[in-house]
């Protein structure tokens, strides 16, 4: 009979940086902040201000704030809004709430606890780009979050904050929640649009970009939940204030870091971009490694970006520093691996994810992810040779850059980054003819 070890429940640590969270201002809370409470805390003031401004002025404000998209690519939000052509006819604002990256659980908490913050952000964004219809595309498993968003939208409609003739301005806005059905690829923005159109969610080739031809072939902006949750704060307090948070000009604002894996206190930690290093986050917020262990490596962006070795732990957590260290901050889903973890097994598990989630449209991705997974499984069991390492690298080379969407590139990073940086551990497996590690820790 197998047993499960006790783990400490999620706890909030004492702050190492003097900062009051704004996206998740109630750490540890499980119930939603509904309209009355949200308004008491200053909620919808940003929206009330925005709707008295010209849409272009709203875009300017967000541009100047330096806000970069929190969905992974870090694309400047204001600039994206500015790409929407000033044409007549329908335009759409689409919030990407498909959050399915291994290690990511920040959007879920925003939506479950602060649904109105997202509704307000969606409203401001829609107004700025001239959209009267907005969609929140939420992954099907997030039933609680979707129900709470529906409730928040209903409250906001009741209060005249969204719906017809918003706040007496003559502007009409319909926000709809659309629930997905389990497919990571729907997080890719063009696959998401296909899904919303009732088609099989396979990415589109670009150009045209969604800003020009998106949902129903109309101009569309797709933004991540956390991106839009920042917007009310920018409008309410002004872009100058926003720029005092983080490291201006390119890494401004708060960021939620999802910390998971081999740490004592996994959880969401909201901090200014660039205010802490990996080491500080893991030790001072995450409570360190179980049993006083040592870090073997950290995945900064879930399964999708290269792992960083322990000598990179003093890298600051902002877009540019993580990139300079050889990876990507992406969605900031940090998975910590300690010395008890087999790197080959970890790579195989991540590859299993991509194999399962490949949409199948491009042959190199569809076939390649299956191959990579099989080879990794074989290597983990000690049934491989150094020729297999070359095979892994050449297979990866045949996928990366030769496929339609970034999933294919993501799928190669668990392989190439581990083979390059932990080669000895791979070699150890076939030298011994078995995996030198115990079965999964914990």
């Amino acid at each position, binding site marked *: 009979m197998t047993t499960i070890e006790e783990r400490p429940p999620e706890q909030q640590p004492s702050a190492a940086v003097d900062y009051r969270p704004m996206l998740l201002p109630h750490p540890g809370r499980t119930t939603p902040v509904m309209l009355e409470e949200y308004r008491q805390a200053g909620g919808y003031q940003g929206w009330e201000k925005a709707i008295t401004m010209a849409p272009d002025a709203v875009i300017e404000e967000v541009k100047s704030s330096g806000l970069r998209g929190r969905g992974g690519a870090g694309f400047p939000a204001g600039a994206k809004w500015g790409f929407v052509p000033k044409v007549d006819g329908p335009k759409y604002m689409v919030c990407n709430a498909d959050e399915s990256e291994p290690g990511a659980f920040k959007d879920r908490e925003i939506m479950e606890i602060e649904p109105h913050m997202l509704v307000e952000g969606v409203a401001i964004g829609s107004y700025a780009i001239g959209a009267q219809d907005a969609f929140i595309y939420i992954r099907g498993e997030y039933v609680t979050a979707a129900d709470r968003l529906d409730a928040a939208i209903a409250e906001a409609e009741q209060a005249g904050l969204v719906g017809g003739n918003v706040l007496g301005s003559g502007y009409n806005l319909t926000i709809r929640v659309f629930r997905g059905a*389990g*497919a990571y690829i729907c997080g890719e923005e063009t696959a998401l649009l296909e899904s919303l159109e009732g088609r099989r969610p396979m990415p589109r080739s670009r150009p045209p970009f969604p800003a020009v031809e998106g949902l129903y072939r109309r101009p569309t902006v797709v933004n991540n939940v956390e991106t839009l949750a920042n917007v009310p704060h920018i409008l309410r307090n002004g872009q100058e204030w926003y720029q005092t948070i983080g490291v201006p000009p390119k890494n401004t604002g708060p960021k939620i870091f999802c910390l998971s894996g081999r740490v004592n206190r996994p959880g969401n930690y909201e901090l200014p971009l660039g205010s802490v290093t990996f080491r500080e986050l893991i030790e001072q917020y995450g409570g360190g490694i179980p049993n006083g262990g040592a870090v073997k490596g950290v995945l900064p962006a879930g399964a999708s970006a290269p792992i960083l070795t322990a000598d990179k732990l003093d890298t600051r957590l902002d877009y540019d520093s993580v990139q300079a260290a050889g990876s990507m901050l992406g969605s900031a889903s940090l998975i910590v691996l300690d010395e008890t973890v087999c790197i080959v097994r970890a790579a195989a598990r991540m590859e299993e994810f991509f194999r399962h989630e*490949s949409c199948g449209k491009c042959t190199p991705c569809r076939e390649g992810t299956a191959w990579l997974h099989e080879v990794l499984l074989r290597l983990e069991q000690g049934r491989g040779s150094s020729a297999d390492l070359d095979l892994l690298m050449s297979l990866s080379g045949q996928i990366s850059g030769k496929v339609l969407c970034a999933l294919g590139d993501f799928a190669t990073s668990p392989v190439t980054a581990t083979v390059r940086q932990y080669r000895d551990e791979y070699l150890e497996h076939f030298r011994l003819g078995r995996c030198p590690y115990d079965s999964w820790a914990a």
Partner: protein
Amino acid sequence: MTDRLNERTARDESVHGPTADGPSASDRQPLLAPETRERIAAEIRRFPQRRTALLPALKMAQAQIGWLPPGSIAEVAGLVGVSHAAANELASFYSMLRLRPGGRSKVEVCVQLPCALAGGEKLLAVLSDALDIAPGEVTPDGSIELIRTAECFGACHRAPMCRVNDEYHEHLTPEATRGLIEALRAGTFEQPGANGNASPPAASSA
């Protein structure tokens, strides 16, 4: 565990195969209850274009029946106004849509990396022991289906975890796991109709 790669072949056959359309929906007793058809009609009205309602409509059909028999997919296609093949393409793609009947409670244990590093594998083993079925199997009485999944459910910080039908069960300490097993055995989470028996539509929305 289901593998999208292998499934895809089967799916493509089901889309293009000679039996894909079968007898037209109108020749048979409808599978969708009037309430479900109503809900689907309302969903179609909710969106700027009808076809956007296709995925929600399939979920509504599944909420009633427990899975998506071919006839139900055809009925949904008819209501939304798309081809049976178009509806099949979705039904066969999404992991939450099920083309086969399963247990009345579905227990999905996450073993993606963050969960695996925090007890997910052990949780799966404990449940497998206690229910006396391997992952991928259904208990002989049809009540519980144990599923191993490498998808991440956005609950990595509360691992080990599983989903039982649409509910998250997180922080599954040994004690909490024992409680969950008891509740499973007592049928607490069973959903009517999940074995394909005709039944009233489930209350939860798609």
